[in-house]
């Protein structure tokens, strides 16, 4: 999949509009300096939108486009191209392809004239969609045709590429319309546009199969995505499998399961569960000692020792880790990684100390987050008490201090089987670079897909669902593989 940087131009500046509204302009400055700062390599495709032209219907930013075309970039430009003369003006300025929007949806004859004159290979059809309806004229009015009709017409003219934007998603950083792109039935090479705000979004789009390219605007400008990293991930999308992690909540040497961290019931022997999960294909195992904050730790160490003796996948252990010595004791007992929660919130330096002593890869931040007002708060004491710390900021800080990964549990969703909290996951995955394990709420197969695809999680954790054998790890892996998500 092509990852195409995109710049919107207005008044010879790079800008962003929120939801296509010309009244909400954010400026990023001079186009050439912006392009330099993004490390766009030679030969790369570059998507430009002339916003003034889009509104007025006349090419405006010809001078800038000419300069870019001379920089060995394969420029495609869109915005208000309503006639062959407009399209010709851009081609004369040196662009490789013109992106035709309103006309493609509204005026089949003009589109045909442009294709006849320039050749279908130099035309990309741009289709803007809001709530399933095609929008035209700088998104300011509905077109008279459906998406399917436009796609069919475009295809019949020999055009091979269509850029499809979900207007509700554009620039709002809430993720692209995976459902829309998944539903498309067309031979056209689809370029996804709108809402791509994390590296995970780019990877998820590349896995859809139906998407041949994506344009990224604001997320590049805001440094949420690095172009080189995105291209590296997309180049080998199947090399690194996403992980399925069963979790054993252990109290006094027994596996237990609670709903919303309370109402606990017995679910078996940890060693038996661990062995079964490895056989089923678990990629990793998490043991959370939920008694440890409140009672003695000797039992927990013994459980870890017994489990690790028969386990040949990585083992992460958390619960009640207060000091570097607690951390060391768990590693010695057989843990590969140790999750810190309450103690780190009280003393963030503990993360840095453990990272220095045992390596970043051994440190996992366990963050229990709860929706409080319009933000997420990090909870302490097994989700019982708020720390009054913003959970997203806390994850960012923990990354800086030296955490290898974040185990992110939604206290609201835990034990409910209502699905992972995608909003929480997105809030964290767009803020940190390290990988996030989604936890709390798994109840159905598509929940696992959504946590990875839309939430940006690199691993999905579940406890009761697997304990109760409502789903096996094999079921989840087969489902994800069928959805294009690589698994081991």
């Amino acid at each position, binding site marked *: 999949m092509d990852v195409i940087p995109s710049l919107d131009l207005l008044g010879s500046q790079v800008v962003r509009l929120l939801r296509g509204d010309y009244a909400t302009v954010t400026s990023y400055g001079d186009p050439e300096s912006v392009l330099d700062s993004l490390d766009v390599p030679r030969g790369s495709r570059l998507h430009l939108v002339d916003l003034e032209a889009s509104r007025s219907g006349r090419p405006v930013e010809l001078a800038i486009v000419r300069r870019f075309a001379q920089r060995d970039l394969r420029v495609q430009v869109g915005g208000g191209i309503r006639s062959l003369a407009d399209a010709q003006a851009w081609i004369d300025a040196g662009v490789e392809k013109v992106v035709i929007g309103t006309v493609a949806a509204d005026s089949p004859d003009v589109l045909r004239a442009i294709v006849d004159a320039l050749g279908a290979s130099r035309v990309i059809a741009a289709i803007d969609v809001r709530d399933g309806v095609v929008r035209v004229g700088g998104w300011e009015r509905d077109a008279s045709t459906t998406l399917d009709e436009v796609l069919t017409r475009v295809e019949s003219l020999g055009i091979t590429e269509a850029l499809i934007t979900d207007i509700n998603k554009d620039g709002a950083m809430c993720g692209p319309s995976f459902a829309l792109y998944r539903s498309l039935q067309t031979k056209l090479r689809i370029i996804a546009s709108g809402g791509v705000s994390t590296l995970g979004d780019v990877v998820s789009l590349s896995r859809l199969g139906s998407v041949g390219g994506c344009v990224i605007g604001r997320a590049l400008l805001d440094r949420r995505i*690095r172009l*080189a*990293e995105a*291209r*590296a*991930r997309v180049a*080998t999308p*199947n*090399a*690194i*499998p996403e*992980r399925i992690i069963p979790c054993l909540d252990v109290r006094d040497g027994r596996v237990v399961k609670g709903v919303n961290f309370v109402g606990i019931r017995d679910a078996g022997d940890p060693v038996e569960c661990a062995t079964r999960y*490895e056989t089923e294909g678990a*990629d990793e195992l998490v043991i959370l000692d939920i008694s440890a904050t409140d009672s003695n730790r000797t039992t927990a160490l013994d459980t870890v020792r017994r489990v*690790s*003796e028969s386990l*040949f*996948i*990585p083992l992460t252990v958390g619960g009640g880790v207060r000091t570097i010595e607690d951390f060391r004791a768990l590693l010695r007992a*057989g843990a*590969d990684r140790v999750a810190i929660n309450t103690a780190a919130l009280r003393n963030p330096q503990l993360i840095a100390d453990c990272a220095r002593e045992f*390596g*970043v*890869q051994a440190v996992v931040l366990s963050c229990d987050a709860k929706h409080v007002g319009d933000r997420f708060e990090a909870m302490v004491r097994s989700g019982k008490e708020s720390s009054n710390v913003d959970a997203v900021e806390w994850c960012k800080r923990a990354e800086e201090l030296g955490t*290898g*990964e974040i185990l992110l549990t939604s206290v609201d969703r835990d034990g409910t089987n209502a699905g992972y909290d995608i909003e929480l996951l997105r809030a964290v995955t767009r803020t940190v*670079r*390290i*990988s996030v394990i989604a936890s709390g709420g798994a109840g159905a197969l598509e929940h696992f897909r959504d946590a990875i695809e839309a939430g940006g999680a*690199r691993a999905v954790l579940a406890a009761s669902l697997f304990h109760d054998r409502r789903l096996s790890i094999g079921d989840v892996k087969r489902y994800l593989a069928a959805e294009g998500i690589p698994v*081991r």
Partner: protein
Amino acid sequence: MITTLIDSPVANVANIARALRTVGADLQVTRDPEVIANAEKLVLPGVGSFIAAMRWLEEHRIDAAIHAAVQRGATMLGVCVGHQLLFDCSQEMGATRGLGLVRGEVRKYEGALPVPQIGWNRIQSVAGRGPTLFDGVENEVFYFVNSYAASHAPDEVAFADYAGSFTAAVQRERVFGLQFHPEKSSAAGLRVLRNFVAWT
């Protein structure tokens, strides 16, 4: 045949010992240079720092003991940092000399992806290298934790991609190295260890 596991303090010896015993190794764990020099089948584990691990080998004259064993025809396996120690040198903190049992050097990842690499990654076996430890698991997924790796090493028998190709396994005559953790790679990892224990 006895398998001799070098009891390095810069390693998680217990885990690899457990995995080797599980696949049927008759195991002894030692840091005695004399025992190591006379070993027929040697395993060198390692985690963390190349420099710290190499310094420990030198201080206890285990480097010389390893060379003596390999010269006498021992079969040897290096795991993770133990694999890196087999190379000529590492670029960790400038250049640090390694054991020189396989050719090439170990460098920090310079690709676009986060370092360290923590997680599963699919390997590809190099075609035409004859029998290797990957018999039955040629293109499997293994568990990696590393910031450094060789790439396109002359003795490479398997590689993987982490924003660029890197060497996942090496083999030179009877010396083998695995960049990943076979003891954490479930059935595929145990298969590789079993192939090593059975190697004649």
